[in-house]
């Protein structure tokens, strides 16, 4: 297992086009991104690498955001990785559950411009 690489972000998003856009945006600010298209793929990547932040979609096939968070917390409860969740679904119960599972931030995908996204990521990473 490698140690956490500063500025590394795991983007877990099932829409490949959006995922690509987030990768370009985060890359433009110097972040290094890895992409997973559902919770199962994300867990596989986490077996090999640690990230400074995980940007997680809530609604995904195979394993959705909340299921992923439950599994992640079970396996890696001591990791300090920041968790940011976003969605375009109005899933109020899931958002509540995600906060209960210890996420650092939730935002509505359609609200955030590229600069808003970078600002959120920066703020969350700077939080102690």
């Amino acid at each position, binding site marked *: 297992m490698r140690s956490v690489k500063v500025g590394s972000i795991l983007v877990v998003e099932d829409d490949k086009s959006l995922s690509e856009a987030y990768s370009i945006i985060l890359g433009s600010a110097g972040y290094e991104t890895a992409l997973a298209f559902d919770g199962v793929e994300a867990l596989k990547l986490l077996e090999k690498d640690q990230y400074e932040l995980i940007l997680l979609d809530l609604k995904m096939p195979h394993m959705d955001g909340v299921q992923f968070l439950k599994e992640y917390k079970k396996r890696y409860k001591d990791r300090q990785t920041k968790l940011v969740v976003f969605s375009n679904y109005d899933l109020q119960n899931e958002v509540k559950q995600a906060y209960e599972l210890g996420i650092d931030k939730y935002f509505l995908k359609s609200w955030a411009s590229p*600069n808003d996204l970078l600002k959120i990521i920066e703020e969350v990473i700077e939080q102690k």
Partner: protein
Amino acid sequence: MTPVIFTFGILISSFAFVIGVMIKRANIEKNLLVNQIEVQEARDDLLALASHQLRTPATGVKQYLGIIRDGMAGNISAKQKKLVDEAYFYNEQQLRIINDFLYMAKLDAERVITHPAEFDLIELTEEVIRSYEYIAEEKQISIKLKAPKELVLYSDKQCLRMCIENILSNAIKYTNIKGQVSITISKQDVIAVMVVEDNGVGIHRKDRRKLFKKFSRIDNPLSSQEGGSGIGLYIAKKLIELNHGEISYKPTVDGSKFTLELPL
């Protein structure tokens, strides 16, 4: 059969009848409740699906246009930037209308849950103003903000953003070319007060009562030129109230004045 036994028999059968009716009614009520829950769940699922299907394509457009606009894919000329700004603005308008309708449906179903957190109201207002700069410039309308450096609120930022967007959008829409919109923010004891004033076409006395009502598009010299769903102020009022605040309207000598009051 003695009269006592007869009376007792009638009492027992009456009691059994009443119990039977009560059980039947309880079952009907239980079935009704189950049906109501099922309808509510189906409505929630439909709303969640609709929100995703409507927002996602516009979110993709927003991200890719934003990448070009903000120079994340290399430099662009001033002319290209102006065109991309225009496309970005119209996509934002579309997203705002989608969000307004989704929130209206959720408000009607009493399914809006707020997520209060601390944030700076001034920063949020500046962000909203920036997003309307393009259309204000097109109409040569100046937007002036008078506010302290920082004013921290504990409220739902997304709700507040939608309120401010709706009020500012209306102010710009219903102000003539070369007009002026001013936003003043102040702290009064434990309340944050935001006043949005314009020197636009104003609202006729007869229309003021329906101002915050659903689908209340109001006739004025600019309403036929400007688009709108007629639900913006309805949403703004409902969302402000959900966050324990108030919104009010007063006419001014040469336009309109909307006041938002929010607990800190």
